[in-house]
């Protein structure tokens, strides 16, 4: 084999502490190295030209560049060797900058280490084989999981871009958390006024199929060709017949059903429509409270329904949706505020969550927009907001900042004053985090125009006193203890990963952090991609986000899908596992351990054998280290390639030397 080696100076970055000429000379002594030189900047235009020229002049079969990390410039140099007519995988890189010149000053040691690293690369290259990407067709349909504002935006953008979209929503209506909000910061404009039209667009868009009250059951396949099983949960109402007239909800005698939409501050009827602007505007029955279903009595709704849509015997149904890409937009859930026992949330009726307060503030909420205490219906005078309940607190394993609580608390303080001009609001806070456009100005308005009293410090405890509550905390700026008498306490509960998020992640084969938020492919540069090709992220499932960020991510994810689908065929990474059918004994251990379901059993002349679905394989190599007979090999990281590297560093001497 004829290998060319290029040792990069990287200006003085490498050459400052590594004798690059010496490295080139030493590596040049290896039997397979036909050309070895040092070069000022290998990645520069003249540097790359030099590589191309050397490949042609010396008829090279492969190239080693010893320079910076391959995580940076490997793609660059692969393109370079390809331009010179070599296969792009006949290239290896040695990292002599981040791993050598930048971490040690001893030139002699560094030089020797650089020689070793370049020699490993040469040893590996001698085992490299040309690899060629395969092409496969794409199903240009996309599934969006989650019908909150991020999912709605992603679905609409994809649909407007001409894609068929399947939108799956867990609850009976889309709209998500935003639909529950009364107003939005920093404009204090009406939440449903801006979200409502988008929801209607979803309902009316010819390219969008909406499954509400449905969940993803399983995901098979791979980018371009997923098969998603969607479980449509029974609503006991035939939605093709239901017109959403609401007659049934008016007459339903069971009125104690849990009102999830109103955050449980009220109850609702067993058959209900979540809220007037719900999409789809269809009734559904809570079987736990339905008298007909639980006791086989009543049946009022069935008698009343003008379109005969009631189906008490309805069953869950599963549909299979073939799609080419998936956008996860599953949002967040609220921190369980009852975990702070000292705040009395859940025990004291007038200690409520911020989202419950939104429902109180909302004109379409159970109190029709009048602020009243849940306990006695009186208008509160002193309203205390407690921030960071379940945020930035290691003791409850929520060390992260939920990001938007500072802003909505300010908004709620402003709204409180608007609704009750005589009221006084207090806000216990740790720091004000208001880094968005017009955000800081907004919080200042809350303090300066609306007289909200901001107290920097944590609340230690809340306890009832008469029909009021004492909120005791520290004022760390004044260095004193403070006690505030409150009529109503609103806890700014933080965001946490949606319930079942990790479960869905496992189905989607994407990773999630220790809190259950989904991991993006690169923190900065690939924020809506995941490590599973064809699966994208939008909104708070990746981490807490406010509305503008969620919408932006929804659009970003949609643009990624549109970009992906702009090609009729995709190219798969050829660094995937490959089975030597002669060696495979068909034991299936690789199938068992593959994290991606990328290996299937096939029949070869009556014998079971493993078969890699190249487009699903992500190239981790777990199969290769599982297979005892080495029958399945991860291309470009085969046993022989890694052994060559190990042997280059420490090979046992041969029994017989030449001398």
């Amino acid at each position, binding site marked *: 084999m*004829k290998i060319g080696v290029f040792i990069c100076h990287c200006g003085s970055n490498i050459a400052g502490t590594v004798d690059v000429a010496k490295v080139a000379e030493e590596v*040049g*002594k*290896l*039997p397979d*190295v*036909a*050309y*070895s030189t040092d070069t000022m900047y290998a990645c520069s235009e003249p540097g790359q030209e030099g590589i191309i020229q050397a490949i042609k002049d*010396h*008829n090279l079969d492969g190239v080693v560049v010893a320079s910076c990390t391959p995580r940076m410039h490997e793609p660059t140099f692969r393109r370079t060797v390809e331009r010179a007519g070599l296969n792009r995988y006949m290239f290896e890189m040695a990292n002599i900058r981040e791993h050598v010149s930048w971490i040690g000053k001893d030139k002699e040691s560094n030089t020797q280490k650089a020689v070793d690293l370049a020699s490993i690369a040469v040893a590996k290259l001698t085992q490299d084989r040309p690899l060629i990407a395969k092409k496969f067709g794409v199903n240009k349909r996309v599934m969006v999981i989650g019908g909150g504002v991020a999912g709605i935006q992603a679905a609409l953008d994809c649909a407007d871009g001409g894609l068929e979209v399947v939108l799956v929503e867990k609850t009976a209506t889309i709209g998500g958390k935003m639909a529950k909000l009364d107003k939005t910061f920093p404009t204090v404009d009406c939440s449903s006024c801006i979200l409502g039209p988008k929801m209607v667009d979803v309902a009316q868009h010819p390219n969008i199929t909406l499954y509400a009250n449905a969940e993803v059951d399983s995901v098979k396949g791979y980018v371009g060709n997923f098969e998603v099983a969607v479980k449509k949960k029974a609503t006991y109402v035939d939605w093709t017949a239901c017109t959403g007239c609401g007659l049934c909800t008016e007459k339903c005698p069971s009125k104690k059903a849990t009102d999830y939409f109103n955050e449980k501050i009220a109850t609702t009827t067993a058959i209900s429509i979540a809220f007037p602007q719900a999409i789809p505007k269809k009734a559904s029955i809570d079987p736990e409270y339905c008298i007909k279903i639980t006791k086989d009595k009543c049946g009022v709704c069935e008698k009343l329904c003008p379109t005969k849509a009631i189906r008490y015997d309805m069953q869950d149904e599963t549909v299979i949706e073939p799609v080419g890409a998936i956008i996860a937009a599953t949002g967040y859930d609220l921190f369980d505020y009852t975990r702070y026992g000292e705040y009395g949330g859940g025990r004291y009726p007038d200690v409520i969550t911020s989202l419950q307060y939104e429902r109180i503030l909302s004109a379409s909420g159970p109190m029709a927009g009048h602020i009243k205490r849940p306990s006695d219906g009186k208008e509160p005078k002193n309203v205390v907001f407690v921030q960071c309940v379940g945020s930035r607190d290691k003791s409850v394993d929520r060390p992260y900042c939920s990001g938007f609580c500072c802003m909505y608390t300010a908004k709620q303080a402003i709204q409180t004053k608007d609704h009750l001009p005589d009221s006084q609001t207090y806000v216990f806070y740790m720091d004000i985090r208001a880094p968005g456009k017009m955000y800081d100005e907004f919080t200042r308005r809350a303090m300066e125009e609306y007289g909200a009293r901001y107290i920097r410090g944590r609340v230690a405890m809340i306890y009832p006193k008469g029909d009021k509550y004492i909120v005791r905390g520290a004022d760390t700026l004044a260095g004193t203890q403070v006690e505030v008498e409150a009529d109503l306490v609103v806890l700014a509960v933080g965001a946490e990963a949606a319930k079942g998020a990790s479960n869905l992640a496992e189905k989607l084969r994407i990773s999630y952090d220790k809190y259950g938020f989904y991991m993006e492919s690169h923190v900065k540069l690939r924020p809506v991609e995941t490590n599973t090709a064809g699966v994208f992220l939008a909104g708070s499932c990746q981490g807490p986000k406010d509305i503008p960020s969620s919408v932006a991510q929804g659009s970003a994810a949609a643009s990624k899908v549109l970009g992906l689908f702009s090609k009729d065929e995709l190219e798969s990474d050829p660094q995937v596992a490959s089975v030597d059918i*002669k060696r495979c004994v068909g034991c299936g251990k690789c199938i068992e351990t593959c994290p991606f379901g990328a290996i299937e059993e096939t029949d070869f002349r009556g014998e079971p054998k493993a078969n890699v679905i190249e487009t699903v394989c992500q190239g981790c190599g777990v199969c290769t280290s599982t297979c005892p007979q080495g029958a399945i090999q991860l291309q470009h990281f085969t046993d022989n390639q890694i052994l060559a590297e190990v*042997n280059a560093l420490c*090979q*046992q*001497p*041969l*029994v*017989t*030397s*030449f001398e």
Partner: protein
Amino acid sequence: MAAKYLKKENLVSWLQTLAKERLTLVPRREGDAVVFRPFAPGQDIPLDQQATTPPKAAVFPQCEPLLAFKYAKDPENPGKVGVQVKEKLGDTPSVVVGCRPCDARGFLTFDRVYDSDRASDLNYLTRRRNTLFATLACDEPASTCFCNWVGSGPADAEGSDILMVPVEGGFVLEPVTEAGEKLMEQAPLEDAGDKAALAEAVKENAAKALGEAPDLSQAREKLLSLFDNMDFWEGVSAKCISCGACTYLCPTCYCFNITDEQSGAEGVRLRTWDNCMSYLFTMEASGHNPRPTKAHRLKNRVGHKFSYYPDIHDGHIACCGCGRCIKSCPSSVDIRQIVLQAIAASAASE
């Protein structure tokens, strides 16, 4: 030189003398096995029974470098690489003391292959010519012994340089070759006297204890006639586990494999034992394997020893009857039984 007597207590001093001039290989206990190792002063020399491994490696090592090579670059043109090659021959003068007649006789099977008009294996011959055998005659056969079946016996001196017959208190040494005679000259010997008669009695008793050997003259043809009878071979090979214990312990199995191994610019071409019980033995580059099952392979082992080899080597059976393949087989496959069954089976089918 006539037969001489070597007192047991003088054996060590003889070995010490031998070891000064030659690599002197003697049986030594290692764990549960008895193997041939260079004589070390003070070691115990277990001569009461056949060694676990034969002294095959003395002439035909398990792994032997045939040549070493080295890539040399043209300093003017690093793209031009030359190869230098050096042949490696093992020419250390050696002697094996305390092997059995079957062990020494095993090399005769090798000689017909590696030292013939058609082929001459220099690596083999160099070692062969530099290695002498002081063989210990057997006084009592083991249950696995059958040297008399293959035309030999417990005191067969063919292939040995000295025959040592164990008698009360020591050994009666009979020179077989001139080289053997020279080795004997270095030993503190006494006249054999009446020990010579004792030695003859030992030989006779041992031969008697082996009993009558069955007539194997039919084996050659009959094994051939069974060549396509895979039912027969599947039956007799059912318990075989296809390992190489039988071949690697066999004093007559001479097959090898050649591989090149490289480390940096240097490399070596190795000859290593190979065995026909292995699937890989006949694996062809195309992926085709003419002996795909253990039945095919065991057929080859038995057929080769008792039919194909004798066919081209004047009727000499490629088996010395040492019985190690039976004794050390994890499944107790008994080659004697297979040969007898073959004779009987084809007789029945005729």
